């Protein structure tokens, strides 16, 4: 096998419990985002746009749809003779096998995969963030700093520090402290879940960690603290731009709504840094004479007779006459009947919303979620709402 300077390992095994019904049957990285994408498209497109052509995708939870989606990596130009995309589920070895017990364990169990490319560096990514980033520049930074491990960081709002892995750094960007989800902190630099390791060093720590019985085998909880303790050179790579963790229904909805901002920093139409995805081959959207579409993103194959305000329609969505959709995300092939009202909701893939239904309310702060492939009639909905489901 040809030597690769840097390969990527993409952690895509997460269950994404907090996404509720959306991840009932599929892994979080396969959840739809932004009118035509799935969350994992961002990390995969970043890889291909950064010149990284070897990506191992670690899957575990509900991998069927994700596997089918990634295929041989064609949409991201990762169908390569050498390298390309490889899906890496847990497997049985001579002495038995195990599920991936943590993020570090997932990489540890695939040391053989990594070693066949004999890389200098390994880029560890997570498949559940929305951002555009040039990993090549980060690698350059890693080399320039003669770092052993580089962690991409972004300043988050102080109120949110308890949701992230927070790093403290000195004047030279050297990491002095790393704390997972601290309740209070003097730093607001959050780890973006993007790491570059010098492979020799990482391998040593992975093997050490694997031998520990009390470890949770997690990068944030175990590997990084261990490295810090040993005085390994850890550097923070400051990133500026759009980055969002879409772990919850609220944050998934927010990240979608961010795309409707006139001055969003996540420029999806930047032709130099396209986000690739599997193309559904749908015809152009049809906007009827009765339709009214404002401040929205609409994808191919949609047919709109009603009103759509500040919302995102994925491909193949139908919006019937007299229906009004506000502040919502409608996932692929959902059919919205006539005279339906939808406020601040996420409607799952392939769901049918019957005529006269009301989903969500303009007064509610909460995002209403309708799962994938449900079929809602107005009567059914009102019962559900009474029960508070």
């Amino acid at each position, binding site marked *: 096998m040809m030597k690769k300077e840097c390969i990527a390992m993409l952690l895509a095994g997460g269950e994404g419990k907090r996404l509720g019904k959306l991840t009932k049957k599929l892994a979080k990285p396969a959840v739809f985002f*932004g*009118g*035509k994408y799935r969350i994992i498209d961002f990390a995969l497109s970043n890889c291909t746009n950064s010149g990284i052509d070897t990506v191992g995708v670690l899957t575990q939870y509900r991998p069927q749809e994700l596997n089918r989606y990634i295929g041989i990596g*064609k949409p991201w130009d990762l169908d390569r003779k050498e390298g390309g995309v490889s899906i890496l589920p847990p497997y049985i070895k001579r002495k038995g096998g195990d599920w991936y017990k943590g993020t570090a364990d997932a990489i540890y169990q695939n040391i053989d995969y990594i070693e066949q490319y004999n890389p200098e560096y390994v880029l560890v990514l997570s498949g559940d963030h929305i951002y555009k980033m040039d990993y090549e520049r980060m690698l350059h930074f890693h080399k320039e700093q003669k770092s052993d491990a580089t962690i991409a960081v972004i300043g988050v709002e102080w109120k949110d520090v308890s949701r992230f892995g927070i790093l403290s750094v000195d004047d030279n960007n050297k990491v002095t402290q790393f704390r997972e989800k601290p309740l209070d902190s003097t730093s607001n630099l959050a780890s973006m879940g993007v790491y570059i390791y010098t492979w020799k060093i990482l391998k040593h720590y992975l093997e050490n960690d694997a031998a520990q019985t009390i470890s949770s085998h997690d990068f944030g909880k175990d590997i990084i603290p261990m490295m810090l303790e040993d005085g390994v050179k850890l550097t923070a790579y400051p990133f500026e731009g759009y980055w969002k963790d879409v772990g919850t229904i609220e944050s998934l909805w927010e990240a979608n709504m961010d795309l409707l901002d*006139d001055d969003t920093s996540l420029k*999806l*139409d930047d032709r130099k840094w*396209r*986000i*690739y*995805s599997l*193309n559904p*081959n*749908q*015809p*152009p*959207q*049809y*906007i*009827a*004479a*009765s*339709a*009214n*579409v*404002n*401040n*929205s*993103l*609409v*994808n*191919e194959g949609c*047919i709109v007779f009603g009103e*759509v305000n500040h919302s*995102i*329609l994925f491909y193949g969505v139908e919006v019937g006459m007299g229906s009004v959709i506000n502040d919502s995300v409608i996932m692929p092939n959902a059919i919205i009947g006539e005279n339906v009202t939808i406020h601040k909701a996420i409607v799952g893939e392939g769901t049918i919303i019957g005529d006269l239904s009301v989903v969500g309310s303009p007064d509610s702060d909460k995002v209403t979620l309708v799962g994938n492939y449900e079929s809602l009639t107005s009567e059914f909905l009102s019962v559900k709402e009474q029960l508070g489901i």
Partner: protein
Amino acid sequence: MKNVMGIINLVNEPDQLEQLTNHRNIASVPFAGRYRLIDFVLSSMVNSGITNVGIFTHTKYRSLMDHLGSGKEWDLDRKRSGLFILPPMKEGWISPMGDLHAIHAHRDYLHRSSEEYVLLSRSYMVCNIDFNGLQEFHNRNQADITVVYKEMSDLDSISMQIGMDENSRVRSIWEPNAVPHGNKVSMEMYFLKKSLLIDIIETSLAEGHYNLMKDAIRANISRLNIFGYAYQGYLGIINTINSYYKHSMNLLNPSVWKDLFFKPGLIYTKIKDEPSTRYINNGHTSNSLVANGCVIEGIVENSILFRGVRIRKGATVRNSIVMQNGVIHENSSIVSVIIDKDVIIKEARTLVGHEKAPYIVVKRKII
């Protein structure tokens, strides 16, 4: 249809698409927001199960080659068979030598293909057709040749017509632009055994014919059992500006949209990876077909926007077609205009055509 090979014959296709075919052949004329004309026949063949398609090109085929690539969007990048683009054998080869010469020159391709049957077609038939029905019909009638036709009331294109007896047997084939004979328009799709095709080509050439579609098949009308098979779906024969414009506008009828693009299969085309179209406040779009990657800040009515079109604030686009990457700047007004690819209409310009004679703006022009 494992046993059928498809041939799309672009040689001497009738072309009155004016400036739209200045730099491309008729097969690669952009249509319906994101497609090229050839996508419809090619996708129909693929959706019917044909995995060997040969395209006999003639002139101006750079844009077609770019569009088709390895054929992967049509699932025709195969180890065996797949897509074959067959350019003219002789340099500087031009008509009046007809398509018979072109196909004969590539007869090795016919001989090497293992399929027993051939489906011949033109590129400019906008339709979505399942050819399996055609094959069944052909076998049931023990036909030598089956030609696909459509009953049409309105002839706005250059098209051949056929006359049939009560048993669906074709008794006459009329030249394009002849006096109208009934309403059966030939879709110039012929289904026949490959061995018969080779035989027809060789004997016709020996007899001094040049054109397969026009002369050779017609010459055999009494000798062979030629049957007509009716196509029921939507058909646009796009080889004049009028038919191009009219059938584009017909797509704004949702039932045509649903018929043509979804049934029986999807129409494939080259992928562009554009994001969703953005509708900005204050803009208004109605009765229009819009592809991905557009940004609409102005007024769009009864129009078709291809991928990556920008309609700036205060601009209005009515009854028009704007092809890929077109930019209509602030306060410009466009009515009944066909705008080719990569055109920029600067601020406060007014372009007005007529429904019967749409104004055409050529590729890459800045107005």
